């Protein structure tokens, strides 16, 4: 007998199980980001395009993003493992670009900065600000770029 909440919920989803939706999204995101990095002329251009691309996903798929956050821990281990692996590959595309721009950061710092930036871009799936998408997208893009360029720079250090 299925006992997990995830199993119960999946029965009510008509077209696809959450796992297959997650798989599709992660695969698509990875494909698209790879296309962006190979087409971009320089890392700065790649980064702007990646922020715009990720934002489109975060705003259009915010319901999936929310259910990812709620359901991920209850997924069967092998699904979670596969999805995590794909997600890591996606993150590594970002890390490579950020590391090329921010040569002063260690790889670990660049990776933490990427995770923080993605979490920033995901914020509309967790909180509702009431700001319409056409204003929200440029605000978050600008925050993401500022955060990545300001990472580890200590102009703000308290005296």
């Amino acid at each position, binding site marked *: 007998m299925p006992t997990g909440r995830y199993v119960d919920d999946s029965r009510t989803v008509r077209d696809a199980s959450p796992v297959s939706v997650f798989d599709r999204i992660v695969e698509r995101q990875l494909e698209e980001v790879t296309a962006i990095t190979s087409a971009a002329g320089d890392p700065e251009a790649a980064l702007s395009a990646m922020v715009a691309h990720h934002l489109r996903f975060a705003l259009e798929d915010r319901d999936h993003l929310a259910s990812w956050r709620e359901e991920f821990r209850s997924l069967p281990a092998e699904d979670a493992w596969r999805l995590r692996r794909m997600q890591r590959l996606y993150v590594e595309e970002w890390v490579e670009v950020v590391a090329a721009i921010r040569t002063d950061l260690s790889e670990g710092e660049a*990776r933490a*900065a990427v995770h923080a930036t993605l979490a920033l871009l995901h914020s509309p799936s967790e909180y509702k600000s*009431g700001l319409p998408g056409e204003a929200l997208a440029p605000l978050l893009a600008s925050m993401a770029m*500022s955060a990545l360029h300001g990472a580890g720079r200590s102009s703000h250090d308290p005296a």
Partner: protein
Amino acid sequence: MIQPERPKATRRRTSVRRQELISAAARLFASRGYYAVTVDDIGEALGLSGPALYRHFPSKEALLVAVFDQVIEQQRDQARELLAEAADPAAALLAMVRLHVQFASEQRENLAVWRQELHHIPQAESGRLRRAQRLYVEEWVHLVHELRPEINDASARALVHGVLGLLQSPSDFRSGLGDDGVVNLLMSMAVAAVFQGATEPLDFPALAQRRSRARSA
């Protein structure tokens, strides 16, 4: 049946016990994770039997709600204290950033459970918790208004949400950088994000002066 009124001392003992249970549950949930902890584990930590515990909390879920209540309340109280004590908005921002990173790291497990369980606990409870959380967010929004008076209210709120997401990112991911490394990195990112699009360069001493001039004016 008519219940005789409890003498005061018993009531006080009851609330002490309740508090002990909430603290033990919070500790266990945070270290082992909500799903792995049983009601018996929580009782055991205090030398209590299951039935004795159920007198205070009807279920593990009720304890979880009590833990959330307490975490949110503490967070809000700490934020208010920091904001009241801070010399200027710039100092307040740094203190709030540090508070939130510390909160996210201490409450890592509880944050994950919060995200997963909030939709499943009774609506009256989750509504109340969300409202309490909003009060904390409003402290941030108020601070952003002081730092960036040119930004409108909805934008300030969206900005705060983004900053909180950024600061909470270690709850999803272990960087291996060590606490200080992560805190410094996230602080610099959060401050840069708050000042995105600012026409003036980030100048905290000047900001502090502006504030003290405004105060004395």
